[in-house]
């Protein structure tokens, strides 16, 4: 078994008093790719924020590579964990290269000058995200799918071992959703990156991830393979509604088939 990238036990986290996470356990091994699913308000994004070091845990333990997450200095943590936040436009006309190069901050610091390895890492990140040809373009001129790749490339420039993504396929056209999911899969398979992906899309997650975790009201409801988690009883528990599930005719992985008001069951 590969060592644990993340070891989370009994995690409680809160905004302004009310616990959003109420005892979450998660053991994520290096090289795994996991999709985090659940209804709005279930705590998916909150968990991601705790793991990225943006929100302190109120209770419980969060270990990154065997060490308490809070014991890491911010820049030290940023060399291990890259975050792709939820899609947001950037109103400032930076070039693609400049935005991706900011991913080197954990190495360069406030006053240092970027060296040869920093430029190499930025070039590699641009290539891995398939946007090397966009490097001179302004981010204000990009399509949603292109901009999402810039955000991913910026996180890759950190040379992280764990990549956290918050709904990277939301607000994208169908083809770009598949593109981004395939990119995450490739980074996981070829670069050995551990990937934790918050998603709304059950089918995309089932198709591209080998492990799915479902949250509801701040608790883990299901954690396992698509075959174990994408089932009618599990979905009923998470969403309070009956959904038909059928194997994909292409991959055989379970897919949620939408039908009218559950009368097909």
């Amino acid at each position, binding site marked *: 078994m590969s060592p644990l990238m993340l070891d989370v036990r009994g995690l409680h986290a809160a905004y*302004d008093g009310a616990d959003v996470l109420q005892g979450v356990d998660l053991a994520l091994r290096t090289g795994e790719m996991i999709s985090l699913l659940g209804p709005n308000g279930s705590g998916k994004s909150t968990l991601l*924020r705790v793991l*990225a*070091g*943006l929100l302190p845990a109120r209770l419980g333990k969060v270990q990154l590579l065997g060490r308490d997450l809070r014991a890491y*200095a*911010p*820049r*030290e*943590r*940023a*060399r291990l*964990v*890259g*975050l792709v*936040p939820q899609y*947001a*436009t*950037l*109103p*400032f*006309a*930076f*070039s*693609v*290269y*400049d*935005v991706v*190069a*900011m*991913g080197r*901050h*954990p190495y*360069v*610091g*406030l*006053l240092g000058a*970027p060296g040869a390895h920093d*430029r190499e890492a930025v070039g590699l990140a641009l290539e891995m995200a398939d946007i090397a040809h966009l*490097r*001179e373009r*302004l981010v*204000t*001129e990009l399509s949603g799918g292109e901009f999402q790749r810039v955000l991913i490339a*910026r*996180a890759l420039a*950190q040379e992280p071992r764990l990549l956290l993504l918050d709904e990277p396929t939301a607000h994208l056209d169908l083809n770009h959703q598949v593109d981004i999911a395939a990119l995450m899969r490739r980074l996981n398979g070829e670069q050995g990156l551990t990937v934790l992906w918050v998603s709304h899309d059950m089918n995309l997650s089932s198709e591209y991830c080998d492990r799915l975790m479902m949250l509801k009201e701040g608790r883990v409801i299901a954690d396992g393979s698509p075959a174990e988690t994408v089932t009618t009883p599990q979905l009923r528990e998470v969403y309070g509604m009956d959904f038909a599930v059928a194997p994909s005719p292409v991959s055989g992985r379970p897919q949620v088939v939408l039908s009218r008001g559950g009368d097909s069951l």
Partner: protein
Amino acid sequence: MTTTARRDGRVFGVVLPLILIAGVGAGLISLFVGAAEQSPAQVVGALLDGGRALVTGHPYPVDTLHSIVLNLRLPRLLLAALVGVCLALSGSVMQALFQNPMADPYIVGVSSGAGLGAVVAMMLVAPLAPLGLVTVPALAFAGGAAVVLLVYILSQRAGRVHTATLLLTGIAVGSLVAAATSFLLLVMEQDLRGVLFWLLGGLSGRGWTHVAMIAPHAVVGFVACLVAVRPMNLLLLGEDTAASLGLDVGQAKRWLLALSSLLAAGAVAVGGIIAFVGLVVPHIARLLVGPDHRHLVPVAAASGALLMILADVAARVLVAPSELPIGIITSALGCPFFLYLLRRQGGRGL
């Protein structure tokens, strides 16, 4: 680095020297223009005498020419440039702090606090009396800094300060402080014209004392802005992203707020409330060299100085021999230009 970085670098390498040369040109015009008739040669001669006096210690001739050039026009020129530097840098920092290109130096209440401080000072001493020369800027500065501090403390919640809360608290407290100022103006027995002139922003009647007051703000502020270029760039990506890249966002925001406020308070203390410079100059600089603060900070500082020197010349020339408050000039020029920018840029980003 890349071709883009090189292209930006090239633009920067051309734009900055051009602005600096224009600034020197505007500075000479500013020294030549005035109520008293002197030839440019006389002015330059007086400047050289002053420089020689500074180097060798031999005093320059005491006459009207030397006194006008060296004790009226030269400090005023420097004051205009330094106020421009402070306002432009303050605006650039505020826009990075708020991640919003519409933020201006006065957004968290510096101007209202400084206004109250200045009015209180003018109730106590006449603004142009020897004591007033120091008291008005000192109380204006204290008022501006105190209001920002109050706004910051009121915006804190569980040790964190949200940018939107800071903005709205700034507006609310600013209105209250402005109301207090209005009340004082009503009950005040002194001549309101002097107060109004100060509130509208102006550089008349200022001298070397004021240059000495603002010079440290401009110099220290400029160096601090250069140190802060990376945090400011990171903040433009959003606070979560900046934090995920290892920036201590809370600390960076506190420092930037302090930096921007000290720059703005310094400018307001000696020049009154000069509008639009801090808002428009960072826009112009961004149009010229892009949003990267490594380029933006020097270009904004130089453009701010240039713009203020020109505005001050206009303030002195337009209704000569009388004088306009410089804030009227900057508003008259800045507002249409800003509206033009808004319409031109539409949704294309800044």
